């Protein structure tokens, strides 16, 4: 049983999604139960997998018992275990929130939600480049439908852009995979890494083209400047629990960049080593600058949070661009923090919008809210965390990233990251004071919000103090992860033990 644990993050949501296909009126309680149980089961599996990975050994699962490099493998190392746990934690918050009534606004919310998790989990686990494409498509197709959940003009307009861009991205992904396959003759990432080390010189141009095309695809998913234009509109238009779940989607892109380039283009790849680094570094800085301006300019709370996601993307990619073990460790800590907190903020923005009635999430004066006190407290905690002010987790995350930069990198990263944080400080304090303090006199607006919504938001936002309290063990884990990532030879040896003899 224990060796099959690795495949469960893919199987559980798949089976749950199939169970949820059964359509009939009045089944909403059954659907909610199945969906919540499946998500909790996934959390338990993820905890089990982290326990397996924490020992430092890399384990793989050969589907159909076809051994690598011939079959498709699922690979579990510290990084994938961490991402699975993060996904499950985020999904629980989102699904509890959705059970308050958002799931009834369209059809089959829970089934699509589970399939989205299937795609995300699969992308984190797979060790095969083409299989990564397939899981990307699964998560994208589910996300298209989830983005449209509930309908409405804004959502459909945002979806058209999102879908068309991602379809173009998928085509590019296939071209890149095709080029890499043509040049190396394999699709298994570990095998490809090994073959790249002994690549004939005349194929280097081909591989460079393929690798940089992959960077474009992952950059589109991660929403890097200049490929981010779909993100603010799509995230601002999506239903709240979907937007919260989408907080992990940009991180799928960042995970893919980390995985592919640290494994395949590590120091052993000769002249091709770290070929993405300069691109990522400068694009990350540009993303930070643009996102800082966007945060200030946003006139709607949900749009503001979407730009906060963009700031986190810039910060994370800057860590990828530095490429040292310290930077990778720092960015992983920051990644956990930012995913949970921005997810919580999306949910919170929706609650504020519901309670303000006509004013919605626009940052304008409105009537005072019935539960203004509680919402304001949560907004305060979320803002402190996301800006990166002590004592919450954002401060530690950003300090770690800033500390990881060295030499001239500091000259670029420090001012840009600090200015972007200042921009979010200004924007969030303006939004908070307008919505909670500058309210007009008059009767209270809105009705009491369902308890499940509070539960979902508190679940996600409580990550901020918890990450500080557990900063020691978590950073020990991320440091070990970074160390594992910068020594890809161990992964290759695990997957292909015979390769040494063959050479």
């Amino acid at each position, binding site marked *: 049983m224990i060796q099959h644990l690795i495949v469960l993050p893919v199987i559980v949501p798949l089976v749950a999604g199939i169970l949820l296909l059964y359509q009939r009126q009045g089944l909403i309680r059954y659907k909610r139960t199945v969906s919540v149980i499946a998500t909790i089961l996934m959390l338990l599996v993820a905890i089990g997998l982290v326990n397996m990975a924490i020992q430092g050994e890399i384990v793989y699962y050969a589907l159909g018992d076809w051994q690598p490099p011939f079959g498709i493998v699922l690979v579990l190392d510290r990084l994938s275990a961490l991402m699975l746990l993060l996904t499950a934690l985020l999904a629980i918050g989102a699904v509890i929130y959705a059970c308050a009534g958002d799931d009834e606004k369209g059809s089959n919310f829970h089934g699509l939600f589970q399939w989205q998790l299937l795609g995300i989990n699969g992308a984190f686990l797979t060790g095969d480049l*083409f299989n990564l494409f*397939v899981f990307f*498509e699964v998560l994208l*197709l589910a996300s*298209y439908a989830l983005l*449209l959940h509930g309908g*409405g*003009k804004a959502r*459909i*307009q945002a*979806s*058209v*852009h999102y*879908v*068309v861009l991602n*379809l*173009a991205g*998928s*085509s590019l992904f*296939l*071209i890149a*995979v*095709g*080029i890499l*396959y*043509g040049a190396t003759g394999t*699709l298994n990432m570990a095998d490809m890494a090994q073959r790249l080390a002994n690549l004939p010189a005349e194929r280097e141009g081909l591989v460079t083209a393929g690798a940089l095309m992959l960077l474009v695809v992952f950059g589109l998913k991660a929403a890097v400047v200049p490929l981010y234009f779909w993100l603010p509109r799509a995230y601002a238009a999506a239903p709240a629990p979907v937007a919260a779940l989408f907080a992990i989607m940009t991180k799928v892109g960042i995970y893919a960049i980390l995985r592919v380039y640290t494994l395949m283009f590590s120091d052993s790849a000769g002249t091709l080593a770290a070929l993405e680094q300069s691109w990522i570094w400068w694009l990350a800085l540009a993303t930070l600058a643009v996102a800082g301006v966007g945060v200030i300019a946003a006139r709607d709370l949900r749009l503001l949070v979407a730009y906060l996601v963009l700031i986190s993307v810039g910060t994370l990619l800057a860590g990828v661009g530095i490429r040292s073990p310290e930077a990778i460790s720092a960015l992983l800590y920051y990644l956990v923090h930012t995913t949970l907190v921005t997810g919580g903020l999306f949910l919170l923005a929706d609650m504020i919008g519901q309670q303000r009635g006509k004013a919605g999430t626009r940052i304008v004066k409105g009537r005072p809210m019935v539960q203004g006190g509680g919402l304001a407290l949560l907004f305060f905690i979320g803002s402190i965390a996301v800006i990166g002010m002590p004592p919450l987790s954002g401060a530690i995350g950003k300090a770690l990233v800033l500390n990881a930069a060295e030499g001239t990198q500091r000259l670029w990263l420090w001012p840009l990251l600090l200015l972007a944080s200042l921009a979010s400080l200004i924007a969030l304090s303006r939004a908070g004071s307008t919505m909670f303090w500058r309210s007009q006199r008059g009767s209270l607006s809105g009705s009491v919000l369902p308890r499940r919504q509070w539960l979902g938001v508190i679940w996600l936002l409580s990550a901020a103090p918890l990450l500080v309290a557990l900063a020691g063990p978590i950073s020990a884990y991320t440091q070990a992860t970074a160390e594992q990532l910068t020594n890809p030879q161990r992964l290759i040896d695990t997957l292909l033990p015979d390769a040494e003899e063959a050479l």
Partner: protein
Amino acid sequence: METLYAITTGVLTACGLYLTLRGRTFPVVVGLTLTSYAVNLFLFSMGGLTTDGAAIVHGDGRYADPLPQALVLTAIVIGFAMTAFVVILAMRARSEAGNDHVDGKKEDRE
């Protein structure tokens, strides 16, 4: 054969790209479809073009790489699903916005 194949793929990609960049949803959908055809052809050719070769390694060493064929099959299936979805989405956008511009704008500046 390689030249003809390369030219075909190139022309399809160029047409697909041009149509994808148009302002109306219908050309965009056709453009995406053309691009996916081009990508399928491209993928197919990445194992090398072999005529009259078995898809299994034979004694004489002449064989067609079977993996790209499997990849193309997967890509075609996914491409069909995506095309169906984007067509429906374009119809919905047309009925919600009242026009078929990708940005949902009324005025026509094309």
